[in-house]
C-alpha cells in the first residue's frame, strides 16, 4: 500500500469513527477523521489524502453533496461511499457521480480494505 498519503474517514457517527479508527491503527494505515463535510474539506485543504471514505447520510451536506465539493477542490482523490440499507440507492448514484466504489454498512472490514487498496492503486496511477 502506498506509504505516504493518508486516508480520510468522514462520518457523523462517533461510535463508527472509533471502531474504524481502531481498525486502521491496528493495520498501520495512516488516517484522519472528520465528523462532517466542512471538517473534511478543512482536512483536505491542510493535507494530502489519496482516499476518502465517506458516509452517505450526514446532517448538513450529505455524502454525495460532499463528494461533489471534494471533486471540485481535489479531483484526484478517490472516494469510497458508505451506504446503509436505507440509503442503498446512493451506492449506484455515487458511482455514477465518480465515486471509486461503495461499501454497505455494517462494513465488512476485509472488503473495505481491498477497496482501499484498489482505490490507492488508482490514485497512485493518476500521479
Amino acid at each position, binding site marked *: 500500500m502506498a506509504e505516504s498519503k493518508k486516508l480520510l474517514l468522514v462520518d457523523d457517527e462517533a461510535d463508527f469513527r472509533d471502531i474504524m479508527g481502531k481498525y486502521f491503527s491496528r493495520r498501520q494505515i495512516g488516517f484522519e477523521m472528520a465528523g462532517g463535510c466542512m471538517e473534511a474539506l478543512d482536512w483536505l485543504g491542510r493535507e494530502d489524502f489519496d482516499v476518502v471514505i465517506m458516509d452517505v447520510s450526514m446532517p448538513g451536506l450529505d455524502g454525495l453533496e460532499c463528494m461533489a465539493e471534494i471533486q471540485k477542490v481535489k479531483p484526484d482523490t478517490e472516494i469510497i461511499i458508505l451506504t446503509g440499507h*436505507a440509503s*442503498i440507492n446512493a451506492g449506484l448514484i455515487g*458511482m455514477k457521480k465518480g465515486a471509486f466504489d461503495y461499501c454497505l454498512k455494517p462494513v465488512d472490514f476485509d472488503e473495505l480494505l481491498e477497496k482501499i487498496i484498489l482505490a490507492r492503486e488508482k490514485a497512485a496511477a493518476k500521479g
Partner: protein
Amino acid sequence: MQRIISFFRHIFSPVPEQQLSPEELRIAFRKRYANFRGLLTANNNALQAMADLEKVYYGGDSYRMAFIRSKVTTILVNVFKMIRNLLAMSDGKYKELETIFERIGHDIDAIIERRPDIRQGPFILPLAEVNRQEKDQAGEKMANLGEVAAIPGLTVPQGFVVTSSATRHFLTDEYLVEINRRLQVILPDNLEEMYKGCAEIQQMIRDSPLPPDLEELLYVHYARLERATTPHCRVALRSSALGEDTAGVSFAGLYRTVLGVDRESLVAAYKEIIASKYGARAISYRRKRGYRHVDIEMCVGCLVMVDALVSGVTYSLDPGEEESEVIRINATAGIAKGVVDGTTITDLYLVSREKPHAVVYREMRQDQAASALTYGQIKKLAEAALLLEQHFGQPQDIEWSFDHQGTLYILQSRPMLKSRAAEPEEDTARMAQIEEREAPVLLGGICASSGIASGPVFRVDSAETLCQFPPGAVLVLEHPLPDWAPLLSRAAAVIAEHGSEAGHLATVSREFGIPALFGLPGAMTDLVDGEVVTVNATTRAIYRGRREDLLRMQTVRRNIMAGSPVQRILTDLLQHITPLNLNDPDSPQFKSTWCETLHDITRFCHEKSVSEMFNFGQIHHFDQAAAKRLVGKVPMEWWVIDLADGFGDGVHIEDKSIRIDDIASVPMLAIWQGISAVPWAGPPPVSVRGFGSIIFQSTMRPELDPAVASALTVKNYFLISRNFCNLSVRLGYHYAMIEAYLSDLLTESYVTFRFKGGAADLRRKTVRARLLADVLQHYDFRVELNSDSLLARLKKKPLEYLKQRLQILGYLTLHARQIDMVMNSPGEVNRYRDKFLADIEVMLAGDTPPILGESDHGGE
C-alpha cells in the same frame, strides 16, 4: 467463426502508424490492464450476486427485501463498473451500453419501489356499512365481519372500523420513514436486538399524539355506540390487517386485541393495536413469509363487548377429521379470548354437518357444568357455521359468544387454513434416511442449482458432441461454459468438473429449474455415456440407476414465500437481471443492442474486454527503439519490450540488449522454456512444387518477400510485464501470437494462442493449422479453427498448469515453422504430430535442462 475471420482481417490489414514512446506505451498498457482487471473482478461480483438472488428465489427458504435490495445494488454497481471499464478500454466504442443499462436500471427501480395502491376514504366506517368491497379501508377481518352482519339470521356486535385512511393520517410518511430506518438496522439473527428495536418503535407510536380530528371522530362514534347500547359501554378493539390475503399464510395471533376498553382508554388502546404491527413476532413472521411492512396496513375494529355466558371457536369442517366431515366446536365459559390463545381449557364437540346436527363426539374438560352447551346452542352454532361457509364459499374458522340472553354473536369469521405439507426440515431428514440405502457413485462438488433428476449420461466436449445431445439426458461437462447453455432446455440435469454457482451456466440451470452440480472432479472420467444416473444436486450426490424414491422427494418441497409480495417482486426483478440472451459470441446477435438483461451486459462486456486486451499489441504500434535484443545462445532474433515490471533489477533503459536471466516476466519465461527446450531441426526438405508456391505467393504479396524485409517481418517481439506477456512472431510467411496473464487469482488468468498463414498454398496451411489444433486440444485448449486461422484459449486454470501450456506454445511456435511446406503428405503429418507430442511429454516431464542452440538456426 465470422468473428475470427474479421479478427484476423483486422490484424493483417495495415493499421495507421501510431508511434508511442516506451513510456507512453507503458502507461497505455497499465491503464488498459487496470481496466481489464477491474472489469473481470466486477464481472465475478455481479455474477456472484445474481447467483445469490437465484439461490434464495429457487431455494424455498425465506428472504428479505433488504437482501434483495443489497444484491440488486451490488449487481447494478458492478455492471456499471464493467461498462465503464469497457468504454475506457475501447475508447468509448460501446457507448450505447450506457443507454441500455439506464433503461434496465429504471425498470428495476420501478419494481423495487412498487407500492400497493392506496385509496383514501373516510377515517371511520360503521360496521353495518362495511363489506368485502371496503377491504382496503377496513382490513380483512372487519370487512368479513361487515359481510356477516348483513347475512339474515346472524348477529354481530355493534361497532365501527377505524380505517387504513385513518392509520395513514396518524402514522404519516414522516413516521414511516423513521420506523423503516429503524427496521432496516434490525438484523433478523439477533433476537435480543430485535425485541429491543421493536419495543422502541412501538413505544414511539404509543407516545405520538393522535391527530385532533381523528381523536374527535373516535369519541363521536363511541358516543353513538353508547346511545345504541348502554352509557359507558365497554368495547373490544381488534386488529384488522390489510394485505394478508395470501392462501396458506395465516397471520394468526400476531396482532393485539384489547378488551374492556372505555372512553378514557380508547385512544391508548387504538394506538396499542396500530403499534402491534411492529411487534417482534409480527415482524419476523412477515420477513419469513415474504411480506414487506408496507404491504400490511393496520385497521382497527371497535366492537361493543358481548356480556358472554359461553364463547368459543367453530370450524365448519374439522381439519382433523377429513374423512367424517364434521363441525368442530371448542367452547369455554365467559369470553372467547382464551380459546383463541389456546390458554384456556375448553370442551370439545364434534357435530354432524347434516340436519339435525347430532353431536357425534363430546369431550367435557371444564369443571363448570354450567358452561356446557345445550343442544339448542349447538344446533344454532352448526347452522351459523354452515351459513357462513356457504356465504364465503369455503370452510370457515369462526369466533363466537352467547350472551346471557341467549343471543349468538359472531365475532370473526375467516377462511380455514388448509392442512400444511410436511415441513422442509422433515424432508431433509427423510431424504438423508433414504439416501443411506445405497452409496453414491460420486459425491461432492458445488450445488449450482438444487433439485433431483435422472437420465442417461451424455458427455459433451466439442461442437460435434453438442449436436448429438439427446433430450432428457444428463449433461456432463468438463467446464460449465456458456457455450453449452442451449443444451439446458433439453437436459435433465447438468454436471461439470469445474465451475461454481456463480457462472453463466449455473444461472441458466436455475432459470430452467434443472439440477446442476458443478466443481465435481472425475465426472468426465467416472461417468459413462448412456449409463442412467440420478443426480441429487441438493445433497451433491450422483447415484447409479433411476432412483424413484429420491425423485419422489422432489415434489414435496414447499416454497414458504410462494405468492408473497416480496416473491412477486423478485420474480419480476429476475426477468430484468438473469436471463441470458447472448449465448454465442459467433452469432450475429452477439451485439450490444441485443442486450436485454444485466446478465447479457456482463456477458457482452466480458467478451469484448478480452478482445480489447488481445488487440493491444496490434493497435498500439510500439517504438522499436524501446525494444531490447535478447542476447545469448538463442536461435533467431528476439526483441523484448518492457511494459511495466518485466525486467529484473539492474537493467538500464539505455541498454540495447538484455539476457534471459534479466527477465522477470513469469509468462515470458515459461514460453522461453518451451522455445529453448528442443533445438529446431531446421527446415524440412522441400519439394520443387512446394518451393514454387512460395515464390508465387511472394510475387502476389510484396510484403511477404523476404528480400523486402520490414522491421516487423524479421523481428519477434515480447511485450512483457511481471504477469503479462504478448509474444508476436511474424516470420515472413506466418504469424503467431501468444498472450498470457498469470495471476494468483484464477479469474484473472488466461492464455491465448493465435496462428495464421504460411508460405504454402491454403490447403497445406490448413492441414498445418489442423495439426496444431489437434496437439493443442490434446492439452485441453479450447480451439477454434477456420481454414488456416487458429485460435486456442485457456482460462481460469492454476498457475503451474498455465505455465506448462505456455511451454507447449513456445515449443510449437518454434517447431511448426515451415512444416506447412510438407503438409501434403499424410505420413509427414502423422510423423510431426507424434514428434510434437513426444517432445512435449519429455519437456513437461520437466527434467530436461533447457538446450540452447549452439549456433543460430537462422530465421525463415
